[in-house]
């Protein structure tokens, strides 16, 4: 499935949830089932700044694809991370850099979790893009 196909599927799933409490219930369930990261990976280096809750993101390249590991102390954010992983995990760096994560807007998450200095979702997306860019540059440097 492409990134956009995955996003459209998520939008369809959310469209069946007709109020915010149901959406949060869904996200909480996703969050409970989400495989987070080990305690030793919850370092300052992997932590995102500017979030009201704690968020950690790390990544590695495996066979040309970026494998993300993400976690949060907030169940709702873990649910959002689970959705993002569905969209971005094991994608190429260029797919990640070029992706438009429109599903967040379509399911209402970019407004509900922003704006403020604690704009966790925007910070998470920015970090994902930065990691994608980092690996894209590594690939480009390796070719040179």
């Amino acid at each position, binding site marked *: 499935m492409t990134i956009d196909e995955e996003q459209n599927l998520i939008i369809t799933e959310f469209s069946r949830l007709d*109020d*915010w*409490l149901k959406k*949060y*219930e869904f996200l*909480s369930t996703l969050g409970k089932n989400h495989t987070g990261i080990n305690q030793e990976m919850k370092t300052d280096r992997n932590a995102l700044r500017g979030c*009201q*809750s*704690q968020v950690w993101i790390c990544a590695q390249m495996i066979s040309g694809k970026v494998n993300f590991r993400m976690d949060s*102390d*907030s*169940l*709702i*954010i873990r649910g959002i991370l689970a959705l993002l992983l569905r969209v971005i995990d094991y994608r190429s760096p260029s797919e990640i850099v070029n992706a438009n994560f429109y599903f967040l807007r379509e399911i209402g998450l970019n407004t*509900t*979790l922003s704006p403020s200095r604690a704009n966790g979702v925007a910070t998470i997306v920015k970090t994902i893009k930065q990691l994608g860019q980092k690996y894209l540059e590594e690939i480009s440097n390796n070719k040179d």
Partner: protein
Amino acid sequence: MKTPLDAQKIRDDFPILQTRVYDKPLVYLDNAATTQKPRQVIDRVISYYYQNNSNAHRAKYFLAEKSSELYESARETVRKFIGAANSQEIIFTSGTTASINLVAQSLRKFYFKKDDEIIITEMEHHSNLVPWQMVCKDVGASLKVIPFDDEGVLRIKSLESMFTEKTRLIAVTHVSNVTGVINPVKEIIVRAHAYNIPVLLDGAQSISHLPIDVEILDCDFFVFSGHKMYAETGTGVLYGKQKWLEQMFPVQYGGGMVLSVDFDNTTFADLPFRFEAGTQNIAGAISIAAAIDYMNDIGINAIHSHEKQLLQYAADALGDIDQVTLYAESATKSGLLSFNINNVSPFDVSMILDKMAIAVRSGTHCAQPVMKHLGIDGTVRVSFALYNTVEEVDVLVKGVRRAVQILQ
């Protein structure tokens, strides 16, 4: 349950409380962060701009005289409200944080020296911690901290053992902005004064909830913010005993606070103007006076009694939920409480309550040392005002039960 105030009638004075959020009536319970404003305050500010706006204490024409009169009348209203001896002891500032910084930076110039000691408590808001910490770093003084116990109560038995001949000031919050615990400030002041140690009280969380009389308290400084007592943001007051203010150096310089200026030297104005550099927030000061008039019409004792009942009702109802931990449960509190749902992020709780149109604050509440002591990342804080109702507490409790179902 009936409370001393007809809160439903009072709510009609607050236009914003008619707001619907996600098609539900707004339940605003974040008053420790900022309070909503009654029509009487809003109208007084609008009236000022429609009829009286001019710079105060500058020109001599009709509008300027009127503006000056309103500004000074506001100062006098504040003086009476907090029981200060004279209006020269009332300085208008931009808020509690600015007031504390003013005192800290001014005393730093002549009063604090190397190896001096400043005492604060473990439960201070960052605004009554960082200014003193920075002064200590600047002059080579040290910061001592009065701890609180597991019930959120200050361990003041240890207070006098902390005093040395180097202790120069104690800065303490009147009411904790995290737990709502009321500190025994009168006792602290009596003990401190026995050793000639001045005391600054942070009244941000007490000014609109408890009757304040600075002469009875005998505090050396008392600070508060207008926006936490139904007035505008960007407003506040520093009360200082005249004997202190007279010795203190200004920390902001410019127009309005000088007597004479030439390139070699400047002399400063008398109190209170010495500490009010530049054009002040005149409308803001007027809003404080209007808010005080509003509270006086209702009665601060009635307000206190109403909020006390709401707080107890909320604490009892939340305490009945097994999965909820209340903080400082048995301590005497004012205006607010903090809780958590066990093993659940307070951020999640506040997000879910938000979707039920319930506005509460989650996080560290600008009091990270408190969280460190409690061993947690943050709390959900519920904070009341004179317009909150029993019915709103019922909505909150129902919301918390729903949040437990969703998140656990």
